[in-house]
């Protein structure tokens, strides 16, 4: 087991190296000069200042040298300096936005799980009845609404019509005010409600799986009540696969939500990513890609390890 974990952990830096190489090459070989972005109107390809800036940013060196320099710095924790926001280190820029996205996604995840898991558990008990297909279908319907439509409709319903979120108090519905601000409700709902379908399906399948097991029949035959069986035997075992899925969702927290953040004007990592792609802000794009990739790789590993810990039949050699 330890052998396996160490081998997988050694793979993570290699994976990051490959990911960084791909993104690095894509952007450097793609057209568009970052110097042009930095200087804007003052850009003049023949002037000395452009040459100086190019040298200062290290853009005049051969590609492989640039890449090697970048990788060495990255693994030392130095993500460089943003091209767009001169003088700001990428690390500082990203960590602030990442915190915003993480809070938002956490709120969304809370909504998905608190609705999805009990609902999935419930409909697994109603198998064959009308509740089961009805709820699954409703969840699919909510999941299929395009986010670009869902967000304005939510805003309209909650902020304008129902006045659920006090619109009159002068607080605008869009924007960002932290985890405990009312403005988080709409973006969190728009991200969380589509996710309900995933948890409902997973929980339903895993509950059905557990209910077929012999030990549940044993519990029934020794005369335990339905409530005790449900809480003590079924739920506890059915939740295990969900926990491993959660590790992926937690990694997704870092990635942010591009569409919701763009519409709602939330200063998160998704919006920053889009901006940096359009601005050719190489250091920021590289750092975001690498950090999310690293989180996903580690989440993958965590999921595998939890599986093995939970189910002794699974062994990794």
């Amino acid at each position, binding site marked *: 087991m330890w052998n396996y974990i160490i081998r997988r952990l050694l793979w993570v830096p290699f994976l990051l190296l490959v*990911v960084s190489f*791909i993104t690095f090459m*894509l952007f450097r070989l*793609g057209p568009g000069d970052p110097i042009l972005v930095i200087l804007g109107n003052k850009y003049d390809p023949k002037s000395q200042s452009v040459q100086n800036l190019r040298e200062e940013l290290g853009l005049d060196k051969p590609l492989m040298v640039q890449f090697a320099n970048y990788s060495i710095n990255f693994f030392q924790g130095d993500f460089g300096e943003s091209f767009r926001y001169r003088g700001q280190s990428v690390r500082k820029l990203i960590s602030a936005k990442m915190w915003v996205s993480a809070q938002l996604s956490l709120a969304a995840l809370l909504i998905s799980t608190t609705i999805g898991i009990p609902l999935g558990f419930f409909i697994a008990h109603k198998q064959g009845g009308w509740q089961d297909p009805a709820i699954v*279908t409703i969840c*699919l319907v909510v999941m299929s609404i395009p986010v670009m439509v869902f967000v304005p409709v939510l805003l309209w319903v909650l902020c304008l019509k129902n006045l659920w979120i006090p619109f009159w108090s002068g607080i605008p519905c869009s924007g960002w005010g932290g985890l405990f601000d009312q403005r988080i409700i709409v973006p969190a709902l728009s991200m969380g409600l589509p996710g309900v379908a995933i948890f409902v399906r997973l929980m339903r399948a895993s509950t059905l799986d557990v209910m077929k097991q012999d030990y549940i029949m044993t519990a029934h035959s020794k005369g335990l009540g339905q409530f005790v069986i449900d809480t003590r035997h079924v739920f506890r075992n059915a939740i295990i696969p969900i926990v491993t899925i959660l590790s992926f969702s937690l990694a997704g927290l870092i990635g942010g939500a591009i569409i919701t953040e763009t519409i709602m004007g939330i200063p998160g990592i998704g919006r920053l990513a*889009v901006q940096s*792609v359009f601005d050719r802000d190489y250091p920021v794009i590289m750092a975001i890609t690498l950090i999310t990739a690293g989180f996903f790789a580690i989440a*993958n590993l965590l999921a595998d390890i939890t599986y093995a810990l939970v189910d002794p039949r699974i062994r990794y050699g």
Partner: protein
Amino acid sequence: MIQGIKTEPEMDSFQRKGHIHIAFDRLIRKKIAIACLVILAIIYFSGIAVDWISPYGYTDQDYTQIRQSPNFSHWVGTDRAGRDVLTRVLWGVQNTLILTFVGMLTGGLVLGVTMGLVSGYFGGYVDGIIQRSGEVVSSIPTFFLILIISATIRPRVIEFVRWVEDNSFLEGLIRGGIVDYFVISLSLVSFGWIGTARLVRGQILYLKETQFIDAARSIGVSTSNILFRHLLPNAISPLIVTVTMGMGSMIGAEIFLSWIGLGIQPPRPSLGVMLWESSNISVIRTEPWLMFAPGSVAFLMVLAWNLLGDALNDVFNPRTY
């Protein structure tokens, strides 16, 4: 020689229906699946035939009819430039249809299935390389991946197509939207292959240990025959489910790309661009049809594919139903 057995009359009555046949029988008994198929057929057909159905072109402007609400001559109203919204939505459907099908066929089916077959059957180094590259690609969030790919590759492709136009008799390639199609399909393919490749690989790993493959190998069936005639047909049912469910996310990705400005370029209509122009709260208050027309069509397409995938899953895996 096998046909000889089949022709005996008493065998016919005992002939068992094939797996796919049984599944199809179950599928057409599901009302919801039929409804989905009908919705998809209607939307896609009107998307393909829009040029003949609609009396308007997608750039035809009528300045006497700006921001009209739905009426008899414009069924879903007109936009701020006096263009017929329904016509533009249907043209957008056509673009979505072409892109998602191309993406799914080349990426999800051809590339994904081949990778999965090769990876599962041969194992060893090939398997390692394919699986690791899948891991690399899937470690980058999907939307971010397609964003990076389309942003970096598009200008290069435009340059190349310009060069082709200058050096050949072909004209209007860029205006015709070839570049958009190519770039979007490429970015859809970039993530589309992983799901099917993993699925097929898993199926093959299990199937290749079965006795009928041993038998086929022992009588000297060639490798390609084993792969495509013996292994693939047995892995087809989960593949159908995955591809159907994947269509929803393909459509979502295509709309996202055009929405962010890296997909189909205006004035060519696309659902994503129309949603970008109208996805805000003031549109709901003043011209709701501008948002709900493209929005509901996109919603219906995604929903129909998702429900169809769900129904197919029930049909092929009666165990979970």
